[in-house]
């Protein structure tokens, strides 16, 4: 019960960015791997509803940022692997920049004395 209060829900736009970043760092990966990796990276502070991951992946695929193909997992299991496309890397760079800008602004806004 207490666990829940510490964990943060992930909203769509951020999830897409996390997926792209994960794929950039890890190379081609299946859905479960992406989900686990995001949770691990967050140090267990993110509670990811795995169900929201697949529509998000589909959306990225439709936009052409990721490509998917069937392959074999480390445990010899058939799985669908996602990899970053060239458009995807560009998008990741762009969104990372925007995200940093936003957080910087927010940081100044919320802690005004630090900036001065």
């Amino acid at each position, binding site marked *: 019960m207490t666990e829940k209060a510490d964990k943060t829900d992930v909203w769509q736009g951020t999830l897409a960015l996390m997926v792209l970043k994960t794929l950039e760092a890890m190379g081609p990966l*299946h859905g479960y791997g992406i989900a686990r990796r995001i949770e691990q990276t967050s140090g267990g502070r993110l509670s990811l509803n795995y169900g929201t991951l697949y529509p998000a992946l589909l959306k990225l695929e439709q936009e052409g940022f990721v490509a998917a193909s069937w392959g074999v997992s480390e445990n010899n299991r058939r799985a669908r692997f996602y990899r970053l496309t060239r458009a995807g890397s560009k998008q990741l760079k762009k969104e990372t920049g925007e995200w940093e800008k936003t957080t910087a602004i927010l940081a100044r806004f919320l802690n005004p004395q630090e900036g001065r």
Partner: protein
Amino acid sequence: MIRSLRAFLVRLAGSFGGGKKDRELGEELESHIQMHVEEKVRSGMDEGDARREAVRKLGGLDVTKESWRDRRGLPVLRELKQDLRYAARMLRKSPGFTAVTVVTLALGIGGATAIFTIVHGVLIARLPFRDSDRLVAIWEENADRPGRRNVVGPANFIRWSERATAFSGMTALYDWRMSLTGRARPEELIAQTVTSNFFTTLGVEPVLGRAFAPDEGPEGRDAVTVLSWGTWQRLFGGDPSIVGRTIQLNGQPVTVIGIAPRAFGFFLKAGSLTGKPPDLWLPFAFDAKSREPHGRYMSAFARLKDGVSLAEARAQMKAIASSLTAELPRWDTGWTVRLFPIRDDVSGDMRPALAVLSGAVGFVLLIVCVNVANLLLARGMARRQEMAIRTALGAARSRVVRQLLTESLLLSILGGLAGWWIARAGVALLTAWSPVDPTVLARIRLSVPVLAFAVLVSVVTAVVSGLAPAFESSREGLADALKEGARTGGGSRRARRLRQALVVAEVALAAVLLVGAGLLLRSFARVARIDPGFDAKGILTGRVTLHGKIYEEDERVMAFFRGVVERARALPGVKTAGMVSFLPLAGLGAATDFTIVGRPAPGPGEEPTTDVRVCDNAYFAAMKIPLLKGRLFEERELRVKSNVIVVSESFARQYFPDGNAIGQRVVINMSDNPDPTEIVGIVGNVRFENLTAESRPSTYWPHPQLVYGAMSFVIRTDGDPKTLAAPLEAAIHDVDKDVPLAEVKTMEQWVGSALSRARFNAMLLSIFAGVALLLAAVGIYGVMSYVVGQRRPEIGIRLALGATEQEILRMVVIGGARLVLLGLVIGVPVALVLSRFLSSLLYETSRSDPGTLTAVVGALGAAAVAASFVPAWRASRVEPVEALRS
């Protein structure tokens, strides 16, 4: 932007054929769960728990799949697909209802599309000229002569074109017949002789070769011609090398310089001497002699200068015309000039009939909507429980309405497809029957605008007929519907009222159509009974026009015709063979003014006029035109100019009301210095122009007095006149092998085409009215069956209390009759008001013809009784006990 467009397109594509992708997702999620489970098991969890945990983390398999599917396709499309699939299933489940509805819709949509195809071709489609709305037709008008479009005199036209500043170009033309020779078989062609600026004024470029140069036309220039597309195809097989080659026209070499575009056929029947569209064009130029007034025989057109309005051009031409009346009083007194947009002239006299037919088909479409609405309403009642359950399970009302509208849309699409087929057949039939001239017909085809119209009509029909039932069905209180559904029948009072109102509307609409059709049929019957003044049965006709140098001598012309007539008389089966310059009911004829010897000369513009025909005695015999008084021509008078004429009864009665016409002498202005001629006989009247116009005063001349190079042979036989066509042509070629025989038709065919317009209108409106009557009957049947079904318990009680079967029968039939009566009370007055639009199509038939009205009331009454009889009979057979129990 591009990314989201890409995503949209992918999703649009993803909306279709999802089976494989769904399976793939299933596999992907399964492998996800497996990996999850394996990991948990490795860390010591029980496999069952691990699996539950994995599914929970996924947020439930089905929810995930659902949101994934939403993302894959477009949810709106997915719902539509669902609705469509469901609608298709519902329609398949009740094939009877579906068939009746689709056929009903097809009749309405098909009929509307067919009529619109014609309206579009005649009134809307672009004319094959550049900026056709800037083109005007110019006619002369004489208040004393019938019609507002009289052909134009060259003397006036020359003066107009010198003085008018409102136009950027003015062109004039006349048409005549020519012989194309130098080929296996001589051929008659219609030539339009046009001023050299004809093509440039109309804004038409030849598809091959060139148009006329401005200096082409005067006598002495090389003879050139532009061929119509049709002639090029028909006679020269579309060979492009014909341009630059020489053909033989009337025995003269003429060089082909161009081919006109396919769609271009310039033909206004009102001004045509031949009554047929042109096969080729020849240039001409006015010479000094043309300035002298000498007759009216041309059609004139002009293109408005930029910035000049039609009204301004009209005012200017009116002013010029009145100054001409002052300058040429003998010639122009009583004459003025009229301008019409060219579109008006091209669609000509089809306008009123098309307006009526469009109105009629609109009414049919309305009835169709009403009927389909009625059918849907009936079904809605039967499906109330289904709707209630769907609502109870959480379907929003808007969703239910959308579902019902999808169903009617699907029905309309099916109806539209079937209707498209009906429209195609209908257009083929219409163009085959129609009295429309062929140049207009060329533009009548199923085209993109027509297709768009059909789609629009289908969708509008779907919405109009589906909306009321959809809302009616979805408005039911949930509990009520379920409760009522437990009992038989059901259906609110409101719904019953609505259905009865629909039937009343249907009957009223049908009454309007029936009245219209009845009036046209009656009028047609009257026209068909008109005695044209001759007996058309067993007569073959064919026309010959002589051209060329050898026929410049009158004696040769007369010898040719005499030779052919003698040979024709000798043919087996021929009873009489004669000839005449202008056949009745076959086009225009010559007419002129005259003076009566011994009476004071009339003022300018007040001379009496007469039709002039050249013929022999055998013409009267062959046509069975009776000699009423005096005698026909003597043998000598048919060979030597003797100055005698025979006149029609109408001529004698109009100009010699005292009955003393025989022996009188008249001077008829058919030549420059006419001799007085003596009236020797009076023959019966003949309807010449058309069947409905009174016959005009006519004079008949023997050949030597007025030598015509164009004559029609009239051959009477006891057998089938068509079999004489080949022998007649052989007889002609026996006399001169280069003379073509044209327009070989039986006299009955000529009469038939004179009737065709009236028949066409009457027939078409009758078809529409028939459909309307049928649909109304179906509607009455539907409502009465429904009412009877609903009242079964009540009828059971009545029967149990001692009512007889006849009483029940009467009760139901009277119920149906009441609806019809109400419909008639509304429909007949509306019909009487609307029949105003029919008056121009009616011949000697009153708009409120009592016979027609009685027949309409009778027909609808009979339909009502017939339609409610079956349900009534069923009601009377209700078993009281059973009815009460159910």
